[in-house]
Protein backbone atom coordinates (compact mmCIF):
# COMPACT_ATOMS: atom_id res chain seq x y z
CA UNK A 1 0.00 0.00 0.00
CA UNK A 2 2.79 2.39 0.90
CA UNK A 3 4.48 2.68 -2.51
CA UNK A 4 1.14 3.42 -4.04
CA UNK A 5 0.52 6.32 -1.69
CA UNK A 6 3.97 7.69 -2.45
CA UNK A 7 3.24 7.32 -6.11
CA UNK A 8 -0.01 9.18 -5.72
CA UNK A 9 1.78 12.02 -3.99
CA UNK A 10 4.30 12.19 -6.78
CA UNK A 11 1.58 12.20 -9.36
CA UNK A 12 -0.30 14.94 -7.57
CA UNK A 13 2.84 17.04 -7.21
CA UNK A 14 3.81 16.29 -10.77
CA UNK A 15 0.39 17.14 -12.12
CA UNK A 16 0.53 20.57 -10.47
CA UNK A 17 3.87 21.23 -12.14
CA UNK A 18 2.56 19.89 -15.43
CA UNK A 19 -0.51 22.02 -15.06
CA UNK A 20 1.60 25.13 -14.72
CA UNK A 21 3.67 24.22 -17.78
CA UNK A 22 0.54 23.28 -19.70
CA UNK A 23 -1.02 26.62 -18.83
CA UNK A 24 2.02 28.54 -19.98
CA UNK A 25 2.24 26.54 -23.22
CA UNK A 26 -1.45 26.92 -23.81
CA UNK A 27 -1.25 30.67 -23.36
CA UNK A 28 1.71 30.97 -25.69
CA UNK A 29 0.15 28.72 -28.32
CA UNK A 30 -3.16 30.49 -27.95
CA UNK A 31 -1.51 33.86 -28.51
CA UNK A 32 0.41 32.76 -31.58
CA UNK A 33 -2.72 31.08 -32.93
CA UNK A 34 -4.60 34.35 -32.47
CA UNK A 35 -1.86 36.33 -34.19
CA UNK A 36 -1.85 33.84 -37.06
CA UNK A 37 -5.64 34.09 -37.37
CA UNK A 38 -5.42 37.88 -37.53
CA UNK A 39 -2.68 37.76 -40.17
CA UNK A 40 -4.67 35.23 -42.13
CA UNK A 41 -7.75 37.43 -41.77
CA UNK A 42 -6.05 40.22 -43.74
CA UNK A 43 -4.97 37.87 -46.51
CA UNK A 44 -7.87 35.47 -46.60
CA UNK A 45 -10.34 37.85 -48.24
CA UNK A 46 -7.89 38.55 -51.08
CA UNK A 47 -7.43 34.89 -51.88
CA UNK A 48 -8.92 33.99 -55.28
CA UNK A 49 -10.53 30.71 -54.24
CA UNK A 50 -12.03 32.40 -51.17
CA UNK A 51 -13.37 35.15 -53.42
CA UNK A 52 -15.00 32.69 -55.81
CA UNK A 53 -16.50 30.69 -52.92
CA UNK A 54 -17.98 33.84 -51.40
CA UNK A 55 -19.32 34.85 -54.80
CA UNK A 56 -20.99 31.51 -55.38
CA UNK A 57 -22.48 31.64 -51.87
CA UNK A 58 -23.93 35.03 -52.78
CA UNK A 59 -25.43 33.49 -55.95
CA UNK A 60 -26.88 30.69 -53.85
CA UNK A 61 -28.39 33.29 -51.50
CA UNK A 62 -29.99 34.96 -54.55
CA UNK A 63 -31.76 31.66 -55.21
CA UNK A 64 -32.81 31.20 -51.58
CA UNK A 65 -34.23 34.73 -51.49
CA UNK A 66 -36.13 34.29 -54.76
CA UNK A 67 -37.63 31.15 -53.21
CA UNK A 68 -38.49 32.95 -49.96
CA UNK A 69 -40.03 35.89 -51.83
CA UNK A 70 -43.82 35.85 -51.58
CA UNK A 71 -45.26 38.02 -54.42
CA UNK A 72 -48.33 38.76 -52.29
CA UNK A 73 -46.57 39.55 -49.01
CA UNK A 74 -46.77 43.32 -48.43
CA UNK A 75 -44.13 45.45 -46.72
CA UNK A 76 -45.56 47.01 -43.53
CA UNK A 77 -47.07 50.48 -44.05
CA UNK A 78 -46.91 53.25 -41.45
CA UNK A 79 -48.97 56.28 -40.40
CA UNK A 80 -47.82 59.72 -41.60
CA UNK A 81 -46.64 60.46 -38.04
CA UNK A 82 -43.95 57.76 -38.39
CA UNK A 83 -42.22 59.46 -41.35
CA UNK A 84 -38.53 60.17 -40.68
CA UNK A 85 -37.72 63.90 -40.67
CA UNK A 86 -35.46 64.82 -42.33
CA UNK A 87 -35.22 61.81 -44.61
CA UNK A 88 -31.52 60.97 -45.13
CA UNK A 89 -29.80 61.58 -48.47
CA UNK A 90 -27.78 58.64 -49.75
CA UNK A 91 -25.91 57.90 -52.97
CA UNK A 92 -22.51 56.69 -54.15
CA UNK A 93 -21.49 60.37 -54.30
CA UNK A 94 -21.83 63.32 -51.95
CA UNK A 95 -24.71 65.73 -51.58
CA UNK A 96 -22.75 68.40 -53.51
CA UNK A 97 -22.75 66.22 -56.63
CA UNK A 98 -26.50 65.74 -56.95
CA UNK A 99 -27.51 65.83 -60.64
CA UNK A 100 -29.86 68.57 -61.76
CA UNK A 101 -32.12 67.30 -64.51
CA UNK A 102 -34.09 69.63 -66.77
CA UNK A 103 -37.69 68.33 -66.90
CA UNK A 104 -38.10 69.68 -70.47
CA UNK A 105 -35.20 67.57 -71.76
CA UNK A 106 -36.20 64.48 -69.85
CA UNK A 107 -37.47 61.37 -71.54
CA UNK A 108 -37.66 57.82 -70.29
CA UNK A 109 -36.17 55.36 -72.80
CA UNK A 110 -37.38 51.76 -73.02
CA UNK A 111 -35.45 48.81 -74.35
CA UNK A 112 -35.13 45.05 -74.53
CA UNK A 113 -38.09 42.68 -74.38
CA UNK A 114 -40.75 45.42 -74.53
CA UNK A 115 -43.39 45.68 -77.30
CA UNK A 116 -43.95 49.46 -77.33
CA UNK A 117 -40.57 51.03 -76.97
CA UNK A 118 -41.48 54.66 -77.56
CA UNK A 119 -39.93 57.09 -75.07
CA UNK A 120 -42.06 58.67 -72.34
CA UNK A 121 -42.18 62.36 -71.42
CA UNK A 122 -42.70 63.54 -67.87
CA UNK A 123 -46.29 64.84 -68.42
CA UNK A 124 -47.19 61.43 -69.87
CA UNK A 125 -45.82 59.70 -66.79
CA UNK A 126 -47.67 62.09 -64.44
CA UNK A 127 -50.90 61.29 -66.33
CA UNK A 128 -50.71 57.54 -65.54
CA UNK A 129 -52.66 56.10 -62.56
CA UNK A 130 -50.81 56.81 -59.31
CA UNK A 131 -50.55 55.04 -55.94
CA UNK A 132 -48.81 56.05 -52.72
CA UNK A 133 -47.20 54.30 -49.78
CA UNK A 134 -45.52 55.05 -46.45
CA UNK A 135 -42.89 52.36 -46.04
CA UNK A 136 -39.52 51.70 -44.45
CA UNK A 137 -36.41 52.17 -46.58
CA UNK A 138 -33.71 49.81 -45.27
CA UNK A 139 -30.13 50.59 -46.24
CA UNK A 140 -27.54 47.86 -46.79
CA UNK A 141 -25.42 49.75 -44.22
CA UNK A 142 -27.98 48.95 -41.53
CA UNK A 143 -29.84 52.22 -40.98
CA UNK A 144 -33.47 52.65 -41.95
CA UNK A 145 -35.89 55.55 -42.50
CA UNK A 146 -39.62 55.79 -43.17
CA UNK A 147 -40.80 57.88 -46.10
CA UNK A 148 -43.81 58.52 -48.30
CA UNK A 149 -43.59 57.95 -52.04
CA UNK A 150 -46.21 58.21 -54.80
CA UNK A 151 -46.06 57.16 -58.40
CA UNK A 152 -47.05 54.65 -61.06
CA UNK A 153 -47.33 51.02 -59.93
CA UNK A 154 -44.52 49.38 -61.88
CA UNK A 155 -46.76 46.44 -62.85
CA UNK A 156 -49.27 48.84 -64.46
CA UNK A 157 -46.46 50.45 -66.44
CA UNK A 158 -44.93 47.16 -67.57
CA UNK A 159 -48.37 45.91 -68.67
CA UNK A 160 -49.07 49.12 -70.57
CA UNK A 161 -45.83 49.01 -72.56
CA UNK A 162 -46.17 45.32 -73.26
CA UNK A 163 -43.13 44.07 -71.38
CA UNK A 164 -42.34 40.36 -71.61
CA UNK A 165 -43.29 39.38 -68.06
CA UNK A 166 -41.80 35.94 -68.44
CA UNK A 167 -38.34 37.53 -68.78
CA UNK A 168 -35.95 37.23 -65.86
CA UNK A 169 -34.68 40.76 -65.27
CA UNK A 170 -35.59 44.41 -65.39
CA UNK A 171 -32.63 46.77 -65.67
CA UNK A 172 -32.33 50.49 -64.91
CA UNK A 173 -29.91 53.10 -66.23
CA UNK A 174 -29.75 56.40 -64.40
CA UNK A 175 -28.79 59.99 -65.15
CA UNK A 176 -26.22 59.87 -62.32
CA UNK A 177 -24.46 56.94 -64.04
CA UNK A 178 -25.85 54.53 -61.49
CA UNK A 179 -27.31 51.28 -62.76
CA UNK A 180 -28.99 48.27 -61.20
CA UNK A 181 -31.40 45.44 -61.97
CA UNK A 182 -34.13 43.42 -60.27
CA UNK A 183 -35.95 40.11 -60.76
CA UNK A 184 -39.27 40.16 -62.63
CA UNK A 185 -41.26 38.80 -59.64
CA UNK A 186 -40.18 41.75 -57.46
CA UNK A 187 -40.81 44.17 -60.35
CA UNK A 188 -44.44 42.98 -60.48
CA UNK A 189 -44.97 43.23 -56.68
CA UNK A 190 -47.98 45.48 -55.89
CA UNK A 191 -45.82 47.91 -53.84
CA UNK A 192 -43.14 48.43 -56.50
CA UNK A 193 -43.58 51.99 -57.80
CA UNK A 194 -42.07 54.29 -60.40
CA UNK A 195 -42.05 57.06 -57.81
CA UNK A 196 -42.61 60.63 -59.07
CA UNK A 197 -43.34 62.25 -55.72
CA UNK A 198 -41.76 62.26 -52.30
CA UNK A 199 -44.09 63.23 -49.48
CA UNK A 200 -46.68 65.35 -51.28
CA UNK A 201 -44.21 67.12 -53.54
CA UNK A 202 -42.60 66.43 -56.90
CA UNK A 203 -39.57 64.24 -56.22
CA UNK A 204 -36.75 66.67 -55.32
CA UNK A 205 -33.29 66.25 -56.93
CA UNK A 206 -31.72 64.74 -53.82
CA UNK A 207 -34.29 61.93 -53.76
CA UNK A 208 -33.97 61.24 -57.50
CA UNK A 209 -35.85 63.77 -59.68
CA UNK A 210 -37.71 63.15 -61.86
CA UNK A 211 -38.27 59.45 -61.16
CA UNK A 212 -36.91 56.75 -58.89
CA UNK A 213 -37.83 53.14 -58.32
CA UNK A 214 -39.44 52.64 -54.92
CA UNK A 215 -39.27 48.97 -54.04
CA UNK A 216 -39.91 48.34 -50.33
CA UNK A 217 -39.24 44.60 -50.73
CA UNK A 218 -35.57 45.30 -51.41
CA UNK A 219 -32.66 47.16 -49.81
CA UNK A 220 -32.11 50.85 -50.53
CA UNK A 221 -29.44 50.44 -53.22
CA UNK A 222 -31.99 48.52 -55.32
CA UNK A 223 -34.07 51.76 -55.48
CA UNK A 224 -32.31 53.63 -58.32
CA UNK A 225 -32.80 57.41 -58.61
CA UNK A 226 -32.91 59.67 -61.72
CA UNK A 227 -34.01 56.72 -63.93
CA UNK A 228 -33.54 57.51 -67.63
CA UNK A 229 -33.86 54.03 -69.18
CA UNK A 230 -35.63 50.79 -68.36
CA UNK A 231 -34.99 47.52 -70.17
CA UNK A 232 -36.28 43.97 -69.89
CA UNK A 233 -33.85 41.12 -70.49
CA UNK A 234 -32.93 37.51 -69.83
CA UNK A 235 -29.22 38.35 -69.61
CA UNK A 236 -28.01 39.18 -66.09
CA UNK A 237 -27.45 42.96 -66.09
CA UNK A 238 -25.69 43.32 -62.69
CA UNK A 239 -25.47 46.72 -61.05
CA UNK A 240 -23.14 49.43 -59.77
CA UNK A 241 -22.81 47.96 -56.27
CA UNK A 242 -23.69 44.40 -57.25
CA UNK A 243 -20.66 44.26 -59.58
CA UNK A 244 -18.47 45.21 -56.61
CA UNK A 245 -19.84 42.49 -54.35
CA UNK A 246 -23.19 43.48 -52.85
CA UNK A 247 -25.68 40.65 -53.01
CA UNK A 248 -27.76 40.98 -56.18
CA UNK A 249 -31.22 39.93 -54.96
CA UNK A 250 -30.99 41.87 -51.66
CA UNK A 251 -34.64 41.24 -50.81
CA UNK A 252 -36.20 42.33 -47.53
Amino acid at each position, binding site marked *: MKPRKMGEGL*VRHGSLEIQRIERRLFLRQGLSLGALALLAGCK*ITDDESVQSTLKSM*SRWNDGVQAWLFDPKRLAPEFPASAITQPFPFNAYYGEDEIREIDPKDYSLELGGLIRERKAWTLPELYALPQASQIT*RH*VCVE*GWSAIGKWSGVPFRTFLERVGADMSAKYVGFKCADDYYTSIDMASALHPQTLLALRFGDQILPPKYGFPMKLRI*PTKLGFKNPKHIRAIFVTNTYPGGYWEDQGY*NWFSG*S
Partner: protein
Amino acid sequence: MNADSTMARWVKVHPAIVRITHWINAVAILVMVASGWRIYNASPLFDFRLPAELTLGGWLGGALQWHFAAMWVLFLNGLVYLAYGFASGRFRRRLLPITVHGILADVSAALRGKLAHDDLTVYNTAQRAAYVAIIVALIVLVVSGLAIWKPVQFHWLTALMGDYEGARLVHFLAMAAVVFIALVHIVMVILVPRTFPSMITGRIRGPA
Protein backbone atom coordinates in the same frame (compact mmCIF):
# COMPACT_ATOMS: atom_id res chain seq x y z
CA MET B 1 3.21 -0.31 -15.52
CA ASN B 2 0.09 0.93 -17.15
CA ALA B 3 -0.09 4.70 -16.81
CA ASP B 4 -3.85 4.66 -16.81
CA SER B 5 -4.09 2.51 -13.74
CA THR B 6 -1.64 4.58 -11.69
CA MET B 7 -2.88 8.03 -12.56
CA ALA B 8 -6.57 8.05 -13.15
CA ARG B 9 -9.35 6.60 -15.21
CA TRP B 10 -9.87 8.16 -18.61
CA VAL B 11 -13.50 8.99 -19.00
CA LYS B 12 -15.21 9.74 -22.29
CA VAL B 13 -16.99 13.09 -21.81
CA HIS B 14 -17.59 14.50 -25.28
CA PRO B 15 -18.89 12.29 -28.13
CA ALA B 16 -17.46 12.99 -31.58
CA ILE B 17 -20.57 14.83 -32.76
CA VAL B 18 -20.26 17.32 -29.88
CA ARG B 19 -16.55 17.88 -30.55
CA ILE B 20 -17.03 18.37 -34.29
CA THR B 21 -20.00 20.72 -33.92
CA HIS B 22 -18.15 22.61 -31.15
CA TRP B 23 -15.19 23.44 -33.40
CA ILE B 24 -17.29 24.21 -36.46
CA ASN B 25 -19.37 26.47 -34.23
CA ALA B 26 -16.24 28.18 -32.86
CA VAL B 27 -15.01 29.02 -36.37
CA ALA B 28 -18.49 30.09 -37.52
CA ILE B 29 -18.91 32.42 -34.52
CA LEU B 30 -15.46 33.93 -35.13
CA VAL B 31 -16.33 34.65 -38.77
CA MET B 32 -19.84 35.90 -37.95
CA VAL B 33 -18.63 38.24 -35.19
CA ALA B 34 -15.63 39.58 -37.16
CA SER B 35 -17.72 40.23 -40.29
CA GLY B 36 -20.65 41.47 -38.20
CA TRP B 37 -18.44 44.09 -36.55
CA ARG B 38 -17.49 45.40 -39.98
CA ILE B 39 -21.18 45.61 -40.92
CA TYR B 40 -21.89 47.38 -37.61
CA ASN B 41 -19.18 49.96 -38.39
CA ALA B 42 -20.91 50.89 -41.68
CA SER B 43 -23.72 52.44 -39.63
CA PRO B 44 -23.05 52.18 -35.87
CA LEU B 45 -26.12 51.63 -33.71
CA PHE B 46 -24.36 53.30 -30.77
CA ASP B 47 -21.83 56.09 -30.33
CA PHE B 48 -18.84 53.86 -30.90
CA ARG B 49 -17.18 51.84 -33.63
CA LEU B 50 -15.62 48.43 -33.17
CA PRO B 51 -11.87 48.03 -33.78
CA ALA B 52 -11.41 47.70 -37.55
CA GLU B 53 -8.30 45.47 -37.12
CA LEU B 54 -10.51 42.78 -35.60
CA THR B 55 -13.00 42.79 -38.45
CA LEU B 56 -13.28 40.58 -41.51
CA GLY B 57 -14.13 41.42 -45.12
CA GLY B 58 -12.14 44.60 -45.79
CA TRP B 59 -15.24 46.64 -46.63
CA LEU B 60 -19.00 46.45 -46.09
CA GLY B 61 -19.62 44.36 -49.24
CA GLY B 62 -16.91 41.86 -48.34
CA ALA B 63 -18.11 41.62 -44.74
CA LEU B 64 -21.67 40.98 -45.92
CA GLN B 65 -20.44 38.18 -48.20
CA TRP B 66 -18.67 36.51 -45.27
CA HIS B 67 -21.65 37.05 -42.97
CA PHE B 68 -24.21 35.62 -45.40
CA ALA B 69 -21.97 32.64 -46.23
CA ALA B 70 -21.00 31.73 -42.65
CA MET B 71 -24.58 32.11 -41.43
CA TRP B 72 -25.43 28.82 -43.15
CA VAL B 73 -22.57 27.08 -41.36
CA LEU B 74 -23.65 28.49 -37.99
CA PHE B 75 -27.31 27.67 -38.62
CA LEU B 76 -26.97 24.12 -40.02
CA ASN B 77 -24.25 23.15 -37.53
CA GLY B 78 -26.40 24.55 -34.72
CA LEU B 79 -29.37 22.49 -35.89
CA VAL B 80 -27.29 19.29 -35.80
CA TYR B 81 -26.00 20.14 -32.31
CA LEU B 82 -29.43 21.02 -30.92
CA ALA B 83 -31.07 17.95 -32.48
CA TYR B 84 -28.38 15.73 -30.97
CA GLY B 85 -28.50 17.48 -27.59
CA PHE B 86 -32.25 17.04 -27.22
CA ALA B 87 -32.59 13.61 -28.84
CA SER B 88 -29.72 11.99 -26.97
CA GLY B 89 -30.72 13.47 -23.61
CA ARG B 90 -27.26 15.09 -23.28
CA PHE B 91 -28.76 18.51 -22.57
CA ARG B 92 -30.94 17.08 -19.80
CA ARG B 93 -28.12 15.00 -18.32
CA ARG B 94 -25.27 17.51 -18.51
CA LEU B 95 -26.90 20.95 -18.44
CA LEU B 96 -29.58 20.41 -15.79
CA PRO B 97 -30.47 21.17 -13.05
CA ILE B 98 -29.67 24.87 -12.82
CA THR B 99 -30.57 26.59 -9.56
CA VAL B 100 -30.05 30.23 -8.63
CA HIS B 101 -28.50 29.13 -5.36
CA GLY B 102 -26.10 26.85 -7.19
CA ILE B 103 -25.00 29.59 -9.59
CA LEU B 104 -24.43 32.08 -6.75
CA ALA B 105 -22.46 29.53 -4.72
CA ASP B 106 -20.25 28.62 -7.72
CA VAL B 107 -19.65 32.20 -8.80
CA SER B 108 -18.68 33.32 -5.30
CA ALA B 109 -16.39 30.28 -4.96
CA ALA B 110 -14.84 31.10 -8.34
CA LEU B 111 -14.22 34.72 -7.34
CA ARG B 112 -12.51 33.52 -4.15
CA GLY B 113 -10.44 31.18 -6.32
CA LYS B 114 -11.95 28.17 -4.60
CA LEU B 115 -14.16 26.70 -7.29
CA ALA B 116 -13.52 22.99 -7.21
CA HIS B 117 -12.87 21.29 -10.52
CA ASP B 118 -11.48 17.99 -9.33
CA ASP B 119 -14.09 16.11 -11.29
CA LEU B 120 -14.18 17.50 -14.80
CA THR B 121 -16.68 14.91 -15.97
CA VAL B 122 -19.48 16.91 -14.35
CA TYR B 123 -20.27 20.55 -15.13
CA ASN B 124 -20.73 22.80 -12.09
CA THR B 125 -23.85 24.94 -11.91
CA ALA B 126 -22.20 28.16 -13.13
CA GLN B 127 -20.85 26.22 -16.10
CA ARG B 128 -24.25 24.70 -16.87
CA ALA B 129 -25.87 28.15 -16.69
CA ALA B 130 -23.21 29.63 -18.99
CA TYR B 131 -23.60 26.85 -21.58
CA VAL B 132 -27.40 27.15 -21.57
CA ALA B 133 -27.09 30.95 -21.79
CA ILE B 134 -24.79 30.85 -24.84
CA ILE B 135 -27.07 28.33 -26.58
CA VAL B 136 -30.08 30.61 -25.95
CA ALA B 137 -28.12 33.74 -26.98
CA LEU B 138 -27.05 32.04 -30.23
CA ILE B 139 -30.65 31.09 -31.03
CA VAL B 140 -31.75 34.70 -30.37
CA LEU B 141 -28.84 35.89 -32.53
CA VAL B 142 -29.87 33.71 -35.48
CA VAL B 143 -33.59 34.53 -35.16
CA SER B 144 -32.98 38.31 -34.86
CA GLY B 145 -30.59 38.06 -37.81
CA LEU B 146 -33.41 36.52 -39.85
CA ALA B 147 -35.70 39.37 -38.72
CA ILE B 148 -33.17 41.96 -39.96
CA TRP B 149 -32.48 40.11 -43.21
CA LYS B 150 -36.15 39.57 -44.09
CA PRO B 151 -38.25 42.29 -42.38
CA VAL B 152 -40.90 41.98 -45.12
CA GLN B 153 -41.10 38.21 -45.67
CA PHE B 154 -41.00 37.58 -41.88
CA HIS B 155 -42.57 40.88 -40.78
CA TRP B 156 -44.41 39.15 -37.91
CA LEU B 157 -41.07 38.01 -36.52
CA THR B 158 -39.57 41.49 -36.94
CA ALA B 159 -42.67 43.03 -35.31
CA LEU B 160 -42.16 40.69 -32.34
CA MET B 161 -38.82 42.44 -31.66
CA GLY B 162 -40.23 45.94 -32.02
CA ASP B 163 -39.85 46.25 -35.80
CA TYR B 164 -36.62 46.55 -37.81
CA GLU B 165 -34.73 48.88 -35.47
CA GLY B 166 -35.73 46.76 -32.45
CA ALA B 167 -34.46 43.62 -34.20
CA ARG B 168 -31.12 45.37 -34.83
CA LEU B 169 -30.85 46.11 -31.11
CA VAL B 170 -31.74 42.51 -30.17
CA HIS B 171 -29.14 41.26 -32.68
CA PHE B 172 -26.45 43.49 -31.17
CA LEU B 173 -27.27 42.54 -27.57
CA ALA B 174 -27.33 38.82 -28.38
CA MET B 175 -23.94 39.23 -30.09
CA ALA B 176 -22.57 40.98 -27.00
CA ALA B 177 -23.86 38.14 -24.80
CA VAL B 178 -22.29 35.48 -27.03
CA VAL B 179 -18.94 37.30 -27.16
CA PHE B 180 -18.93 37.81 -23.37
CA ILE B 181 -19.76 34.18 -22.55
CA ALA B 182 -17.26 32.92 -25.14
CA LEU B 183 -14.50 35.08 -23.62
CA VAL B 184 -15.28 33.84 -20.10
CA HIS B 185 -15.27 30.31 -21.52
CA ILE B 186 -11.81 30.83 -23.05
CA VAL B 187 -10.46 32.34 -19.82
CA MET B 188 -11.78 29.34 -17.88
CA VAL B 189 -10.08 26.94 -20.31
CA ILE B 190 -6.81 28.84 -19.85
CA LEU B 191 -7.20 28.58 -16.06
CA VAL B 192 -8.01 24.86 -16.23
CA PRO B 193 -6.04 23.80 -19.32
CA ARG B 194 -6.67 20.09 -18.65
CA THR B 195 -10.12 20.64 -20.14
CA PHE B 196 -8.74 21.77 -23.50
CA PRO B 197 -7.58 18.43 -24.95
CA SER B 198 -10.88 16.83 -23.97
CA MET B 199 -12.69 18.84 -26.65
CA ILE B 200 -10.30 17.26 -29.17
CA THR B 201 -9.87 13.70 -27.87
CA GLY B 202 -13.23 13.49 -26.11
CA ARG B 203 -11.61 11.99 -23.00
CA ILE B 204 -10.71 13.44 -19.66
CA ARG B 205 -9.01 12.12 -16.54
CA GLY B 206 -11.82 11.26 -14.19
CA PRO B 207 -11.62 11.19 -10.38
CA ALA B 208 -9.11 8.53 -9.26
